[in-house]
């Protein structure tokens, strides 16, 4: 046990010290149907150079290419990383975390990212639309995770934070409760449908 504990600590020290206890995200990737970058964000220094990042993206892309991740998010374990992914048209969404991370937490981040992008692109989730609204996608990445820490996982809330150029204290509160209500209702509905 002691050995395991040290191994775990060592691994994290080179990554994020807080990861000993907080769930953390290593990267979020948005690739196109050929595995090229649309937008990516790395939070860990597991991939220090651009070429190592590209190699990782290519590896993940080819390993997941043949799977059907269009209705439900799929998951795999590659090189000691958990990768949760989902495809929509010609876009491939990925979230990576370390292999002792809670898979469902990682999945909630992917879902939040996916939902937010869907809202921001007004349901036209494809590469062209994403590139035309790249500013929104980048802001969206910025609002989901900050330096590896999960900021928000609720898609509609993320989308709102990205687009709301006019929030002030009062309206945001009421607006937020509305969106939250909508989100809860939606979640509830999906759950009942799935059962």
């Amino acid at each position, binding site marked *: 046990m002691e050995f395991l504990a040290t191994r775990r600590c060592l691994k994290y020290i080179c990554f994020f010290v807080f990861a000993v*206890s*907080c769930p953390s995200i290593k990267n979020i990737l948005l690739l196109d149907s050929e595995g090229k970058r649309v937008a990516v964000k790395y939070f860990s220094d597991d991939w220090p150079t*651009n070429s190592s990042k590209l190699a990782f993206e290519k590896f993940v892309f080819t390993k997941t290419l043949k*799977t059907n991740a269009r209705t439900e*998010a799929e*998951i795999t374990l590659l090189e000691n990383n958990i990768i949760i992914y989902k495809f929509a048209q010609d876009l491939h969404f990925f979230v990576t975390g370390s292999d002792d991370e809670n898979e469902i937490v990682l999945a909630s981040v992917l879902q939040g990212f996916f939902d937010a992008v869907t809202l921001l692109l007004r349901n036209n989730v494809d590469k*062209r639309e994403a*590139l035309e609204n790249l500013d929104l996608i980048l*802001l969206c990445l910025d609002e989901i995770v900050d330096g590896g820490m999960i*900021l928000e996982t609720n898609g509609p809330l993320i989308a709102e934070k990205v687009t709301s150029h006019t929030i002030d204290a009062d309206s945001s509160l009421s607006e937020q409760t509305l969106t939250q209500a909508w989100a809860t209702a939606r979640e509830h509905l999906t759950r009942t449908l799935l059962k």
Partner: protein
Amino acid sequence: MAQQLVKKDDDRDDEAEYSPFMGIEKGAVLQEARVFNDPQLDARRCSQVITKLLYLLNQGETFTKTEATEVFFAVTKLFQSKDMGLRRMVYLMIKEISPSADEVIIVTSSLMKDMNSKIDMYRANAIRVLCRITDGTLLAQIERYLKQAIVDKNPVVASAALVSGIHLLQTNPEIVKRWSNEVQEAVQSRAALVQFHALGLLHQIRQNDRLAVSKLVTSLTRGTVRSPLAQCLLIRYTSQVIRESGNNTQPGDRPFYDYLESCLRHKSEMVIFEAARAITELNGVTTRELTPAITVLQLFLSSSKPVLRFAAVRTLNKVAMTHPTSVTNCNIDMESLISDQNRSIATLAITTLLKTGNESSVDRLMKQITNFMSDIADEFKIVVVEAIRSLCQKFPLKYRSLMNFLSNILREEGGFEYKKAIVDSIVILIREIPDAKETGLLHLCEFIEDCEFTYLSTQILHFLGIEGPKTSDPSRYIRFVYNRVHLENATVRAGAVSTLAKFGAAVDELKPRVFVLLRRCLFDSDDEVRDRATLYLNTLGGDGSVVETDKAVKDFLFGTFDIPLVNLETSLKNYVPSEEAFDIDSVPKEVKSQPLAEKKAPGKKPTGLGAPPSGPPSTADSYQRVLSSIPEFANFGNLFKSSEPVELTEAETEYAVNVVKHIFDRHVVFQYNCTNTIPEQLLENVIVIVDNSEADEFSEVFSRPLKSLPYDSPGQIFVAFEKPEGVPTLGKFSNVLKFIVREVDPATGEADDDGVEDEYQLEDLDIVSADYTLKVGVSNFRNAWESIGPDYEREDEYGLGPRESLAEAVNTVINLLGLQPCEGTEVVPPNSRSHTCLLSGVFIGNIKVLVRLSFGLDGPKDVAMKLTVRSEDETVSDAIHEIVASG
């Protein structure tokens, strides 16, 4: 790079794939960035340019230092604009560029203004940007605002401050720790994510204070934590508290277990899973504690979401390693997962089933696996092969179907790693299951007939050479081996020649026929192959009449080579060509231990004057060199072992002394490494007075004092003792450092003429049994164990009393014996109730020792141990037992 992109796009005109960034080029975009300087800012256009810059960065383009600085200064101008969308992009850009310290000052005031803005979005973002780029000095200025922000009523602002706090804690812990009160208040927040971030930060602040963490957990597990993410954190902290207090309680009566169990009924899946996982990872978890967790995981197995199925099956797979019976209830659900679309899930399900399955289900499982092997990736296949290997070790009677399976997949396509895993598995099965030997060897023979991997071919040939001659009909393998000589590359051919020779040496009936084949190899096109054939023909007597091959030749040709190659290499490098032939026995056998100690304590190094001697030459061969330079030690013979330096003084004392014990057959030499840490003193005629009244079997024969010991330049004193030959004589020595002190003027460096005699008490020194054992590893413990034979085997049982953990007990015994753990057996898996540890080494007098330790937990904490020793000498076997009995 951008240039290339453009070209590529031009080439594929026909595809007409539209992209707003088509033909984008860094130089042009940097030109465009001039709009940032316009007096009348066009917010929309500026946003577009920033997006383009961010696109370039995101694609991996880099800016030079000047480019980055220019862009940064231009971007700071944009704070003039009141456009919110543009401001967001400015924040993003600043974070992306990560300006240097002197540049940060430019934006600080703008960001601080935004931090106090009425607009929440500005506040939240400005906090995140500022904290990202700031350094410690600035932080003190903005601390007040950050504290306010933590308790801000807008959750986005509060979260921004809390998350920034978590990052800042790494660089400026003392500042962030002052925010405890605010953070504590934020933990009570109604906003879900604020609670999560606050809890994360609060725990980080207190993580080194066990009591505080325990209190935090106690209070929160009673209250209501709303956010699922915060709940997950709380579960992690709870299991941390359980882990740390775990040693004092009986299993089954665990604090907080009820809390974990209640989380299994939470409405959020991530909380349920986190709790289930936490329970399965509890130290020494009982079946009763496991059951509710397994039940919820079982429900996940039939979820429609792949993520849930994966999470559950992965956790159950881990549980199956320690508690296979607890997982058997899930077998039906698990079997349906074998055909899961997601191959990761299917593989995990298979391997779990292989771990939990019983003997009767093996055949059915193998059939299912065969169907599915063809469409999974190599890395999963390796996992399956490894699971099958362990299954076979569990059910030796089933070896037939498992061996068949392995040989079938061995014939199919596959990469090197995969094939290697299969071959390794077959080799292990051959070693462990005698019945499987002949079929296994034939499968391997068939495989090398058509094997594209040189490494595997040579490994198999080597293995055939060892195992083949021991079978009922060794001649049937000769054909396969000799075919290699015809068909393969030089490396494999050379391997095949050695294998043939081994058959010849071991089986006398085959000898004449092997010689015929070996003689043919004399005409090979490769030097190495010819040389080997010649060597074997000569040593085995193939040139003339058939003679009985004697044992010495066999040992020379095929015996184990127990000298570490690194040591051999250094010795050969040091060897000066001369009349005297190179003596392989002079090569030290001690395995150099990794300099772990140095790595472990980089922060502990004392600073300033008290620095300990900066390591006298520490490796064995440099000791040998130092000792051989002293004529008095010349007749002591070969150095058997040098210990690690033992400190005889506290750190930061006037004189730092450590000692290295050099053990010879009939002598012991103490090498005292002394350092004078007082600049105002010069020590002369330094000697160590050693009192051996508690070590009466030793008698002092020689002492070499140190003429002078100036400040901060280490010197060595040697004291030699005679002791009975080849016996592990123990004793305790007390040491006093005696010297003449002369005052030194630090300014001029000149010493006073008059010296004063003085002495300095050092700590005692022990010669322990471990000093007489050398850590020498063996590559294959089982083979070594069998070859040494049971003639001088000694076995006994010991009770080690209550111990902190099994691992601690194992380590203590290893250190006591001073032997080399083999095959990674020094590592005790968590939660295990028993453990076997294999040790090997050489005892003084060059006697090989192998030790097998079986540990078991007897009651909650008492550790019992069975110790079996095999060695080449009866007295040594007894001596090992004495070490343990007296230790």
